[in-house]
């Protein structure tokens, strides 16, 4: 095969482009444009061989390619041909001590509403050991001394604290540039809103639906919709920067579009309307709240320029109303210290928080084999609260790096471990044929139907999917196709919940069964 003038050359990636390998596919990171491209099939093979130092001619020969194909590859300006070898590895950021950048101050766990999904489990009756005013001021002062410039006052309902306004002013005086109050806006009056405008405070408001009955059903308080909307109107009227959080759950999943439109009609900037799916924390753990059809999964919309900023929680802490310091408001069990006045720096610089902040997806099961691991805005809090395993893949992510597919490609997620094996540290008990799995490390439990219990028992590293299906068919009367689907689904759930051993055997490409 003749390759003309480029034959003896090597493929080079542009200086700001890098190839990251996953178990099945790879991804091309264009840090200049901030884009990530999935690389699979022939292109993947070309780049893989290039990274191993093969020349264009050698690659073309090995893969049976024509010159034209390789020339086309270079048209995107991402690759070029050079007489010198050069395929730089991805510049994984060095671990470094993180600084405090953002604080959530949960000044109270009381709330005048009782939302179905509240992550704090807040209600009107939670006045336990709330930090007093001076302690909050201490935390604000110490946070500022650590370089933190962004703070959010939240709850519960933060405005139930009579000293909130004093605390906000104090934060401003301490030099915080971004001060936000997260509120249900039901307690705001015009005088207070005017004050907010003067002080220069940002406000975030949760609104669940444009339909009053749906919003009120979620908040558990009749009339809350009217008061919240009145609050938003007043904030907009007084030009207080306001953003709206729409939390999606089963009750309001059909209302998301309508609510976004409604909020915009109220005068809120569309870019300030955020949608998030209910988090599995506090009352949000109720599985009945999970939306039936609204997508809960992460989809490929990656964008990256600064590779040191690819994870959510580094640089952030939340201080609960009782003084517990946690890395995120949704990671309530990951207490890294107790704020007692004067010890915030010690907690922030302490090994526990620094370790949590420094976790990368290179340490996380499944994710470590994903080609998007340096671009994923991963949520460790969701992974932890759902699976009880800090190093489990987030169940909100639908991408399977071993199969290389996104769920929408074939309607559902494909791929199951070839010979799945349950984690040995888990405790399994059978009861009336059904099963319960207990993770003593985290306290999480999972109940299994009779079929799932049987599947679990067969997850011994020796049985493959076909074996498991066969065993099930021997014991239950069912259609083979149906059983196969059920087994696949169950194994995916086991893996999503971090119940299976992390290591994988055999060739990644053969995982598809």
């Amino acid at each position, binding site marked *: 095969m003749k390759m003309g003038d480029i034959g003896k050359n090597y493929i080079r990636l542009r200086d700001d482009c890098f190839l990251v390998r996953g178990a099945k596919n790879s991804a091309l990171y264009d840090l200049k444009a901030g884009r990530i491209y999935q690389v699979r099939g022939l292109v993947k093979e070309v780049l893989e061989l290039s990274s191993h130092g093969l020349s264009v001619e050698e690659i073309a020969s090995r893969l049976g390619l024509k010159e034209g194909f390789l020339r086309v590859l270079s048209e995107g300006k991402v690759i070029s041909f050079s007489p010198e070898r050069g395929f730089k590895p991805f510049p994984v950021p060095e671990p470094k001590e993180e600084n405090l950048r953002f604080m959530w101050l949960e000044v109270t766990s*009381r709330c*005048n509403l*009782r939302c179905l999904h509240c992550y704090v*489990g807040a*209600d*009107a*009756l*939670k*006045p*336990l*050991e*709330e930090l*007093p*005013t*001076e302690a909050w001021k201490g935390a604000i002062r110490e946070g500022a001394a650590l370089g933190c410039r962004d703070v959010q006052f939240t709850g519960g*309902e933060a*405005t*139930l604290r*009579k000293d909130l306004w004093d605390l906000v002013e104090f934060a401003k005086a301490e030099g915080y540039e971004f001060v936000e109050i997260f509120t249900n806006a039901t*307690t705001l009056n015009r005088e207070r809103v005017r004050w907010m405008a003067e002080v220069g405070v940002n406000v975030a408001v949760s609104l669940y639906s444009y339909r009053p009955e749906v919003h009120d*059903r979620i908040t558990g308080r009749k009339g809350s919709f009217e008061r919240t909307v009145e609050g938003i109107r007043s904030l907009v009227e007084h030009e207080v920067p306001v953003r709206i959080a729409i939390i999606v759950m089963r009750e309001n999943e059909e209302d998301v579009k309508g609510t976004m439109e409604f909020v915009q009609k109220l005068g809120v900037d569309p870019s300030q309307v955020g949608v998030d799916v209910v988090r599995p924390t506090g*009352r949000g*753990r109720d599985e*009945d709240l999970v939306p039936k059809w609204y997508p809960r999964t992460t989809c490929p919309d990656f964008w990256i320029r600064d590779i040191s900023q690819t994870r959510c929680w580094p640089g952030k802490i939340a201080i609960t109303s009782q003084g517990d310091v946690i890395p995120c408001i949704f990671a309530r069990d990951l207490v890294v210290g107790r704020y007692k006045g004067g010890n915030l720096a010690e907690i922030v610089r302490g090994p526990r928080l620094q370790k949590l902040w420094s976790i990368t997806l290179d340490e996380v099961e499944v994710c470590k084999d994903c080609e998007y691991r340096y671009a994923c805005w991963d949520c460790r809090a969701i992974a932890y609260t759902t699976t009880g395993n800090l190093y489990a893949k987030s169940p909100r992510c639908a991408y399977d790096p071993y199969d290389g597919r996104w769920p929408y490609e074939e309607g559902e997620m494909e791929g199951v471990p070839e010979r799945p094996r349950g984690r040995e540290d888990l*405790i399994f*008990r059978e*009861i*009336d044929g*059904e*099963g*319960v799995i*207990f993770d*003593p490390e985290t*306290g999480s*439990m*999972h*109940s*299994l*139907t009779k079929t799932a*219990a049987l599947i679990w028992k067969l997850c011994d590293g020796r049985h493959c999917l076909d074996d498991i299906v066969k065993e099930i068919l021997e014991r239950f009367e069912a259609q083979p196709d149906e059983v196969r689907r059920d087994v696949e689904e169950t194994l995916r759930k086991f893996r999503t919940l971090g119940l299976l051993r992390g290591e994988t055997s055999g060739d990644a490409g053969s995982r598809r069964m």
Partner: protein
Amino acid sequence: MRLPEMRGPVGCDDALKWRKIYGVSGLRLAVRTNSRRFSEEFGRVFRHFETHGDAQLVYSVVVGREGHVLLRGEEVLYETGEYGELVPALERLVEACMVRALWDRPVFHAGAVAREGVGVILPAEPGGGKTSLVTALLELGFEYLSDEFAVVDPKSTTVLPFPKALCFKEGGMELFPHLKPKGLYVEWDMGGEVGRLWYLDPSDLGSEVSGEDRRVRYIVFPERDGLEGAMVEGISKAKAVLKLAENFLNLDFFGRDALDVVLNVVGEAECLRLRAGSPQEGARIISNLMEG
């Protein structure tokens, strides 16, 4: 921290001279206060826990003209300008302390009643309707064990009495209007809204407080799914284990044994989920079920 001015409203004195001892599971707590009113009100809530002897922990409640403070030893735990918050705040603190003291016994977030020696526990999260259902059962003649905490002996799987006064939130109290005047009522301002609670001693309902442990024979999970109509149905033991574990307050204390502890409690019990239009209806269903 500066304590509030001790010379307060009528009923207060300069010293923390009102003092009561409360005990559970070997732990004795002293609650001392400068307010006779507070001492009496809190005493109504924990009446069945009153005891004598030396205290291992001392809570102080200082009621002042400008504000009120709760302390444990010398440590300030809570400050408030709302007198009405004091009873529920100390109640929560004492409960938490008692639960911590019960390190060898599983404590579940559950109502608990008994009839003819047969124990029924009703696990549900706060606001899940435990108090209402317990009250309706008491009105049908059940014995009172607890409206909030089912303390279980893991060996005998009996539920121990934890007879704190029944605590009603506003919605729950409306379901029993005839009981409203009998309760201790507390209220406080919550930024323009009013927090309200009613405490009722079971004897206010004419009910008996069980002095004995009762074997757990029924575990009933009350549900509020927003659907109409009453329903009671059996659930699998595995599901019951999971649901009970969700309400296992001191699970951490049991380490690797936690699952076996829950399995043991579920053991021979009949496990049901219950939906009812009203607590009275739910209570009737449970009562009929027990009558077979």
